[in-house]
């Protein structure tokens, strides 16, 4: 019973140390390290932004990992990859954009490369030479579904922010001296730029977008006029010559100026179309015109030639200017018989305002109005206006007796207005005739000879001796006057006439007696032959030669010496006249005439004393009558006589003409003109 109360031996099993008691605190270190590393990794992953892709035509200066993307000059991303599009036609740039900015990059975003640029306006973005090219982006603050694929712009946009101004469109006939980036000037201030110069898709002109910066765009109204100030203008007026150059940039690149000449315009909406006028004058003249874009176009087809019509030719609607010709071309078509018909196709633009409608009237309404007019007999035709009727216009007017016509509303390219024949059939011919007549004028020769005259006159007038001439001339004239007076006083003229009368009567009598005097006839015939043989033509030639020599002499440099020679000659002439007068030239003449009279009297006496002979010869005459009648009126003798007389008369006339010429214009004779 007595048992040893010893407790049973303890079974010692070593306590299983739980794993955490065996773990050292040191294990926190790798845990913390892991946490830190993972944290950093997660942060850098989550912060790395969103990748967008932009396609550019080239990637000049872009370097992956370095080139920044900037928004308002603040870096918001970096180029990560530079690759190509699938077709290798452009470069695809991958840009990692910061997370906070990425949501704003939506469809409206624009991207372009910024690099240094040298243009007519100067050098821009020189800073990028050192910092390198970068990509600039612009997007608005509106949140739309973000996009990741974009196409970059080739050039920096003029106004990435459309709210900082107003975009309008300008239409011009040709680009003139304009270029992209040309300035828009308002009262001498550059307030905007042109961009996107392109051919118009409406007509034959060109269209350009213009951006006017914010405070200045308030100046734009629907009455604003734009005009081209490219290059420089020179104008010659009463105030002298004025040279107008706006700016060096506008000289090189062209420029556009605008102004609002009249009030009452409405504020413009972005995208409003304006006409670009070629000069300020045209712009001012057009105040009452509507904008070019509001004009409604019609097509005219003319069978006849429309020479003289050109772009800009006015279109009159019942006498009021309502538009202009926009385009001319040829249309080849086939008529109902299959013949080729070539017609002139003219496009006209009608301003609805001029038809009493609002400027923005619907083209269809305008066309409908025209259709109604056409039905009432209105036609388009060519008419001439202006002083000579050479300025052609297109007239839209009612023509009497015209059957109601119909307008081809579905015409191509615009509704076709029926045409009527031109007001005059030979319109083109007359227009051309005037031109050719003007062209035929020997203007150049006139100019040349005028210049030669001027030269001669100048040469003569400039010479010292010329100044001495007038005095001599007046003296000479005085002398001549005296001589004439003396001659008159002595009744020279009367006497001369009397003498001539006597000579004539003597001649008549002689003629009367001559009929019976074959010898005399033979003598006279010989005389006439001699007279006919007289070298009158030679004399004329000689005179011509002298005149030619005289002219040649005047043309030579020796002509300068002429005035001296001339004055000498005049002196001599004066002296000669004086001598003549002193020597009783008039008296001599008188006595000569007196002698002539005596001779005539003697002849008369002789004639009178010859009746016997006459009588005696009557028989002979009677016998000779047959002979004479055999000669007849057209006998060689008569013919010979007539010829001689004609020659004499012609010579006399020539001398008379020469005398008249000298009388009329002695200077001209002297100067050879």
């Amino acid at each position, binding site marked *: 019973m007595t048992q040893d109360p010893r407790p049973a031996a303890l079974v010692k099993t070593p306590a299983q140390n739980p794993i955490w008691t*065996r773990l*050292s605190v040191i294990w926190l*270190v790798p845990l913390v*390290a892991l946490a830190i*590393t993972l944290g950093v990794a997660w942060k850098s992953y989550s912060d790395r932004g969103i990748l967008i892709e932009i396609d550019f035509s080239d990637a000049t200066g872009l370097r992956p990992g370095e080139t920044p993307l900037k928004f308002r000059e603040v870096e918001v991303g970096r180029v990560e990859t530079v690759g190509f599009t699938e077709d290798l036609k452009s470069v695809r740039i991958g840009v990692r954009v910061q997370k906070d900015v990425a949501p704003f990059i939506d469809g409206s975003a624009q991207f372009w490369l910024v690099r240094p640029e040298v243009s007519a306006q100067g050098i821009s973005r020189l800073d990028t030479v*050192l910092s390198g090219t970068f990509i600039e982006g612009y997007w608005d603050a509106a949140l739309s579904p973000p996009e990741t694929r974009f196409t970059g712009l080739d050039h920096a946009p003029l106004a990435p922010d459309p709210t900082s101004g107003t975009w309008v469109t300008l239409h011009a006939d040709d680009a003139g001296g304009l270029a992209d980036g040309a300035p828009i000037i308002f009262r001498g201030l550059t307030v905007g730029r042109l961009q996107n110069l392109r051919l118009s898709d409406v007509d034959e002109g060109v269209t350009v977008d213009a951006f006017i910066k914010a405070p200045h765009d308030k100046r734009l109204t629907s009455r604003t006029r734009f005009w081209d100030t490219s290059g420089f203008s020179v104008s010659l007026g009463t105030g002298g010559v004025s040279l107008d150059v706006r700016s060096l940039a506008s000289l090189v690149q062209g420029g556009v100026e605008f102004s609002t000449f009249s009030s009452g315009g409405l504020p413009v909406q972005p995208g409003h179309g304006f006409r670009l006028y070629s000069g300020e004058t045209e712009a001012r003249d057009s105040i009452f015109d509507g904008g070019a874009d509001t004009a409604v176009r019609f097509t005219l087809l003319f069978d006849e030639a429309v020479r003289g019509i050109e772009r800009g030719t006015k279109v009159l609607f019942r006498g009021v200017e309502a538009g202009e010709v926009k385009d001319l071309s040829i249309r080849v078509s086939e008529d109902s018989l299959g013949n080729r018909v070539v017609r002139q196709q003219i496009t006209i633009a009608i301003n609805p305002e001029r038809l009493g409608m609002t400027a923005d009237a619907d083209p269809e309404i305008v066309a409908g109005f025209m259709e109604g007019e056409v039905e009432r007999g209105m036609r388009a035709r060519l008419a001439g206006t202006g002083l000579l009727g050479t300025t052609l216009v297109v007239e839209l007017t009612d023509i009497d007796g015209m059957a109601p016509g119909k307008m081809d509303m579905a015409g191509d390219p615009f509704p076709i207005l029926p045409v009527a024949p031109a007001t005059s059939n030979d319109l083109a011919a007359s227009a051309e005739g005037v031109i050719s007549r003007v062209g035929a004028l020997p203007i150049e020769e006139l100019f040349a000879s005028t210049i030669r005259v001027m030269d001669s006159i100048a040469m003569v007038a400039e010479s010292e001796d010329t100044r001495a001439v007038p005095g001599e001339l007046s003296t000479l004239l005085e002398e001549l006057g005296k001589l004439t007076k003396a001659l008159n006083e002595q009744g020279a003229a009367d006497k001369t006439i009397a003498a001539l009368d006597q000579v004539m009567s003597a001649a008549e009598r002689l003629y009367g007696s001559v009929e019976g005097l074959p010898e005399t006839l033979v003598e006279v015939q010989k005389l006439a032959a001699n007279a006919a043989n007289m070298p009158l033509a030679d004399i004329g030639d000689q005179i011509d030669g002298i005149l030619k020599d005289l002219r040649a002499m005047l043309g030579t440099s020796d002509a300068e010496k002429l005035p001296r020679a001339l004055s000498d000659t005049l002196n001599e002439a004066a002296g000669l006249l004086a001598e003549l007068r002193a020597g009783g030239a008039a008296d001599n003449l008188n006595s000569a005439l007196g002698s002539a009279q005596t001779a005539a009297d003697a002849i008369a006496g002789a004639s009178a004393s010859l009746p016997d002979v006459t009588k005696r010869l009557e028989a002979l005459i009677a016998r000779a009558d047959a002979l004479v009648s055999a000669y007849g009126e057209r006998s060689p003798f008569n013919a010979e006589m007539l010829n001689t007389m004609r020659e004499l008369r012609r010579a006399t006339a020539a001398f008379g003409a020469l005398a008249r010429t000298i009388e009329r214009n002695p200077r001209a004779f002297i100067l050879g003109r």
Partner: protein
Amino acid sequence: MERHQSAALVAPILTARDAGLVGCRGCGRVWPQGTPTCGRCGARLVPVDVRGLQAVWAWLIAGLIFYVPANLYPMLLTKTLTGHLENTILGGVIELLAHHNYGVAAIVFGASIVIPIGKFIAIAYLALAVGNERRAGGHRHLRLYEVVEFIGRWSMIDVFVVAILSALVQLGFVATINPGPAAASFALSVAFTMLSAQSFDPRLIWRGPPDTAGNK
């Protein structure tokens, strides 16, 4: 028990622990077990404990963790007038090779990649080996440990280069060198592996399995 047997089979060497002694890690003098401090140098006498291996592993893992970003992130950020360069360690080596600087490439490759990775492998091997009681390899293990200890500080050569370059090349916009995120990671990684090597108790190389001494 089987460990003991196997140990007895292969290990005729008498260790300090077998003799009931504890060695001072400071001066190497042995003292009877239970002595709290070394009578010669005053260092605390720590009994050999396999639990010290936990610290080795912990530091080693931390070092490994930091070694990953050290290789993924750029080491040097070089900004010059014309460009901007970011080089990772391996990228730098490849670039040096491309420029035919084989010597420099070899040095960088050795100091930054071969040595750290070799250290990781060596420490891990040692830690595993002592846990498995392989006394036969004692001398080899000790030599390996000494090499690791010696070479560990030289891994910092990369970090020094980066530090010196960053300090010297600060020429404004012409040229600037800044340490990248990898530099800090690499420094931490090297530091942690050094700590790992430090925490390794070389006496474990000679010691038997943890329980054998206590239960005998």
